């Protein structure tokens, strides 16, 4: 069990990752110029309600452990914001690129 509740340091999630039965929503935040580090990435459920937030790694990587359903991933940064949607259906890795601009 994790002692705390804070978001862990974010790392890349390779496509070959074994999600060990979990629904993993992961991806990279970028701009037209390439990966964008340090954005605040929020996971919203199908009602648009906040579910979780992490800060993307310096390379723009983020990862959530969700459940089956419709999700929106929204990224906030001093340079702007952006979002993308994903539908998850059972365990596995769902890759969601998010463009900020």
């Amino acid at each position: 069990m994790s002692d705390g509740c804070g978001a862990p340091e974010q790392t890349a999630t390779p496509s070959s990752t074994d999600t060990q039965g979990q629904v993993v929503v992961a991806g990279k935040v970028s701009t037209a110029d390439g990966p964008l580090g340090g954005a605040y990435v929020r996971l919203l459920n199908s009602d648009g309600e906040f579910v979780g937030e992490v800060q993307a790694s310096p390379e723009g990587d983020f990862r959530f452990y969700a459940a089956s359903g419709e999700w929106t991933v929204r990224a906030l940064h001093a340079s702007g914001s952006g979002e993308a949607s994903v539908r998850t259906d059972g365990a596995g890795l769902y890759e969601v690129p998010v463009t900020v601009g």
Partner: protein
Amino acid sequence: MSRENVLVTTQWAEENLNTPGVVFVEVDEDTTAYDGGHIPGAVRIDWKNELQDPVRRDFVDKAGFEKLLSEKGISNDDLVILYGGNNNWFAAYAYWYFTLYGHKNVRLLDGGRKKWELDGRELTTEVPQRPQTSYVAQEQDTTYRAFRDEVIDAINSKNLVDVRSPDEFTGKLNAPAHLPQESSQRSGHIPSAINVPWAKAANEDGTFKSAEELKELYEEAGLDTSKDTIAYCRIGERSSHTWFALRELIGLENVKNYDGSWTEYGSLVGVPIETGEQ
């Protein structure tokens, strides 16, 4: 309770970075954030290693709190501005500790580290050196702290506010969506609790909503302001955020934070648990 007495804006903070008697303190569970860059002049408090008891499940005692603040160079008369990541969860947790130990002059930076970064304000890796003080804390005041028996007695009699996400409340998830899911506790919520996720008290940029918006939010969710209130989450830090909103922003009198929260309650033998929506 006036917002200005408990919160400062990022603009105010930037204008007061060098004001004597004002100490900025970054509080986080993940302390690598501070190393990567922090508000100029801010000292760091490590929530896990400095504010928690290393053996028992409890937080630092009075002597430990005094030693910690003395080493950090914080005086009893200082105005302490707390901020951190995760929308100020751990800073709000620390605010609650400061309140329990009787520090008079403590405020949160509205929006915390996120707002500061989204504003594009300066961060530094320079670590300040503050001379040691002789901090004296008050005995812990448990007016704002709920323990498990009191929580069980509060079922159907006091307001219980579960501030976790709807999926944690209904039992669909056991932990926030940024953490691997665990199975060491039963899932669900304390019977009669209302579910108002902590994030509803905050704007997207991490700042707190206005007292009027907050009052409407909790009343619409079924909070009876004539009754005492206990807030809980999973380990007590998200509920510190809500405790702050209820007690310090709305100004409700009898609001407690249950720091045992779901990791304690969900592991107790024989207590009632509800699943599904309220």
